[in-house]
């Protein structure tokens, strides 16, 4: 009985470390999604990407006003260029995120 509890405790500690490493990785990835345009800060999210895509699909790409991270209005003269930039940054960050995520999964959170 005592042995099984200590095994459970060891597993619990291992999971704690594993989950902590995942949280650290997520923070690192989210930080990289901060993007500046016209001096304003935008955090690249699916919401921002789809918002831009919606305008582009409606044929509205010139002189669009978006809200930055602080809800301040920013005029984006060429939305297609802005969209291309954010989608490129977002995909690059996702690629590095998945590489590091898979490393953590493979090592089961074990730290070398």
């Amino acid at each position, binding site marked *: 009985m005592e042995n099984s509890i200590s095994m459970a405790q060891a597993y619990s*500690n291992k999971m*704690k*470390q594993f989950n*902590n*490493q995942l*949280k*650290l990785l997520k*923070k*690192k990835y*989210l*930080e*990289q999604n*901060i993007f*500046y345009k*016209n*001096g*304003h*800060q935008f955090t690249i999210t699916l919401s921002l990407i789809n918002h831009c895509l919606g305008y582009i699909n409606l044929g509205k790409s010139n002189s669009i006003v978006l809200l930055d991270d*602080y809800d*301040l209005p920013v005029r984006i003269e060429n939305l297609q260029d802005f969209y291309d930039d954010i989608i490129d940054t977002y995909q690059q960050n996702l690629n590095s995120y998945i590489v590091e995520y898979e490393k953590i999964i493979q090592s089961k959170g074990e*730290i*070398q």
Partner: protein
Amino acid sequence: MNRGVLLFAHNNDAVDYVKQGIYCAEHIKKYLNLPVSLATSDDVKGVHNFDQIIPTPNPNKKQTRNYYDGTIRQNSLWNNHSRTNAFSLSPYDETIVMDTDFIVQNKNLNKVFESKEDFLINYKAQHIDFESTYTNDMKYVSDTGIEMCWATVFYFKKTDRVKKLFQMINHIRDHWSFYRYRYQLLQKTYRNDFAFAIAIHIMNGYQKATWPKQLPINLMYITDKDVILNKTNSQWKFKHESGLISSIENQNIHVMNKIALNRIIENE
């Protein structure tokens, strides 16, 4: 516009801040590729990587604090009063000021130069064990007080508004006992985080406002109760007070265990 990083270092019995500054500057040059200046009251001996050394007096001769290295404690002078002169001391039009124990490990801080803002600072900090709860005393300067900010890293342009901000911070520093009472701060020691938070509050007309905005980085930290187990290349391994082991790589980190940091520096 010339850009650079300004560091402050005043050595004491517990910590060689100049040595930390040299180590910090190595990382800044590697990841941010920016010139680094050091404002110090100490001699900088031997090889260093500073573009400018700015002699500055150390106005504090009596304030002390406890420096922990895990469970070991040492009380020493805490010389944190000269940072408020960053505006007048900086040789740059656009300056990043950071603690010498803030280790840069990626280029994300360079995004500040894409911002149109004249001052950026963090209002939040995150312990890397995610267990140390972000308590009210880390959000606010006191129980009924204003929002806290972290002067560990900040960015400024030399504008009139920022000049006024630093004049206000200096005034608060020089009349600390009044402002400590006015803003209901419990601790007596002068702390830059609080002085900056108070000055920002006053500059905004005694209100919470959208100026200044946050830096484009997370302020991740370990405390002086956490231990550094090892460091290889850009990977750091820590053992936290709770017993948890964690590791970071290519992430900026504020290493508050300055004594352990100096050991790492000596071994590299």
